[in-house]
């Protein structure tokens, strides 16, 4: 009997180890869904002639979940493609959205780009993302996902975004000091 109980406990623990990925899946799926609407309600000049609307990320798990979530979705009659880039510093010119799942990758991106604005929607979740020049930052409030948005930075980058998105988000202005 003891052996059986130990076995059940071991199985439970082993399966639970994977569980953190389970919840992130839902969170990533929600974020991917919101990115789709950001794209739908914005007007970007970048890569108008690409066949697909491309969302790039260096997070494999985000790419996996977002691909499932955005399957068959279209932006201006283009299929939405979620692309994995090992390094966001390379091959990023075709990206319409870049999702930075950690602070480090965004800092490197900005340094490489020398803070020059480009018409790519930059979305992240690091605490100082907006202050560091990002466009939209996901936040958690009351068990839900909300977002901060920087219309000033979007304008500098030549991205027009619907007032509906701005209204639903929380406007944050970059602290230039």
């Amino acid at each position, binding site marked *: 009997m003891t052996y*059986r109980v130990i076995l059940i406990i071991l199985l439970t623990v082993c399966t639970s180890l994977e569980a953190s990925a*389970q919840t992130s899946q839902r969170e990533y799926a929600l974020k991917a*869904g919101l990115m789709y609407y950001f794209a739908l309600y914005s007007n970007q000049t970048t890569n108008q002639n690409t066949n697909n609307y491309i969302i790039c990320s260096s997070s494999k798990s985000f790419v996996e979940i977002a691909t499932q979530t955005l399957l068959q979705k279209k932006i201006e009659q283009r299929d939405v493609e979620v692309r994995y880039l090992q390094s966001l510093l390379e091959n990023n010119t075709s990206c319409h959205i870049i999702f930075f799942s950690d602070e480090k990758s965004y800092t490197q991106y900005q340094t490489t780009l020398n803070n020059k604005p480009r018409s790519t929607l930059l979305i992240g979740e690091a605490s100082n993302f907006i202050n560091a020049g990002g466009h939209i930052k996901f936040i*958690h409030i009351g*068990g839900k996902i909300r977002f901060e948005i920087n219309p000033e930075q979007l304008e500098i980058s030549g991205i027009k975004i619907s007032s509906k998105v701005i209204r639903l988000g929380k406007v944050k202005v970059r602290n230039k000091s």
Partner: protein
Amino acid sequence: MKKTLIMSLFFISHLSFANDEIKDLDFESLLAADVQVTSVMKRTNKASTTPASVYVISNTQMLNAGVTSVAQALTLAPGVQVRKIDNNKWAIGIRNAAGRYTSRLLVMIDGQSIYNPSFAGVYWEALNIPIYDIERIEVVKGQGGLLWGSNATNGVVNIITKLSNDTRSTKVTLKTGTTLDYDVSLRVGDDLNIGENSSYRFYINSQANNKSDKSIRWAPQDKGEKDSFGARFDLAFNDDTSLLIQGDYTDIKMGQTLELAHPITFAGAEVVEPQKRKHTLLMLRIENRLSNIANQSLQTSYAKQKGDQPYYMEEFTSYDIDYQINMQLNFAQLDLGANYSYNKTPFLESDYLNSENDVNRIKKYGTFAQASFALIENELDLILGEKFEHNSLTGWEQQPSIRLAWRPDNSHFLWASFSKGVRTPSLLEYDYNIQTNGFKVEAIFKTGHELIDNTRIKTFLRGNNQLQSEKVASTELGYRISHNTWNADLSVFYSEAKNTLSITPIANPLLVPTVIALLQSADILGFSQYIQNQTVDFNLNSDGKQKTYGGDFILNWQLNPSSNMTFGISYAKQEEYLAQNKLLDFNGETKQVFFALNKKINEEHNIMFQSRWEDGSIYKTDNFIAVDINWNWQYNSQLTFSLTGNNLLEKDHVEYARTNDTFDVATYIGRSVSLGMMVDF
């Protein structure tokens, strides 16, 4: 050993249904979705993948329909029985006849119960939350006892208000009309300088109704006023911990016509005195994400209701603590919780009411556990749960539930459930004696002398502290089908309740022989004096049984990108049996056919049409068709006008005529028109 291993492996599978739903959600719904699929917030998940009969009324629907109260908003949910008694009072029920004091329906605001244990009901007229600040109203038809506790045997209504982060603006609304005298509200919201993402809102709301043109008896007096103010604070300390503080205060004064026993003749007599109530709600909830797989919440709440009626004065206070922890493991999603509730119910005597045992406090405490297993990945889920709860009136009760959810593919969803729930007696049933209209002598024996036969004897409805909780066992089945432009939802149910209320009339055994002797000696004066001092008691018992069965069908169809329609048909039948007598007449059928059409003409204009046909037999009224139309005109980004017509098809009709159940004299609900304006700053 082999069997144990197989069982263990059987449950090792990813929980299904959680993420697939997201791809179909619109922008607002994504923002409304919880990050973790748990019941920590006592919210349901997406209605289409919940193994229960759930209908969600969205904020957009409420604004499109131009409703001015939560009770009226419930008319937007097909299958919900919503009846106006007069221009202020409502009788609302699910899967049985609506009642002003129905206790089979649990109503909550953001998870805080507003149930009143004295009269076992909800004072809908004292709910005055601005409609634009309600995120959604979830209507769960059927048993909700496992998660929400006792008195949810027929359903749960959960009013979920918006995060204050989503209302960080100033809004003013004004509305006036033929029945609605005025409805004025102001909300102010902004960021708070506490933490990274904290915010607040304050609101103040004042509403008044005109009185009806006529009532079923005597002159209508239902002119009413209600004033409220409240605030909500959402403090986010970091991504993992947040604190919600909210409070509301409502003061109502509503005219009414009551039929109460005359102090001398004991016959039903007109009493015209307003109802005055003061309601206070306070709630504090801390939510904490322990890890990616677990979160917990602790909610404490305080409610005070002070009521002043000719037949009933009350001052009820409740303190509640509720803790929940939710874990999403690979083999199961676990929800565990514990609750404690302390209710102070001091008895305040009136001309019509006295207390048998002076029960002035009710304590409740309990615990629940629920586990959801994926038996077949992405296809078949099993949800098991049990709630144990002790209350100081009837002791320990348990409310188990087992549910199965099967999704053979993305279009079809089938579910089945078996659950048991409990309805605890109200203090009216358990402890109070209430004077009702006097019993006629002819009901005991007929003399043939009209004056004597119509003489009434003082009559009391007597509570009984030996009452047991009503125990309801329900079996439910449901099927949903979803396609690109339409979805349909069918649910059927069968419930058997035991320990339902019955009545035993008890009179002095010498009453009849004494009356006969007095009449034979032609001593009319002696008869009159004797009968004046006699009483007939209707003693309440819990020895009845009731079965209820029926079903709902709802079709939603997106006709084109700008138009969508909802069609619903619902039926329920309740049959009381094995009761000692049929004096409590709850038998009958409820039938409803529902149709709604919303047309967004362009970015500025939206028209919503809604109609309900309802059978009136169980309410002792004619059948009626209610037709409502609302037109919203968004003049610019700040200004929206609305024109609303209610009950447009009929000049007027009575919706609830069971005066004996409530003492309220119903009025004719007339056609009405109102004009509104909403300004966003």
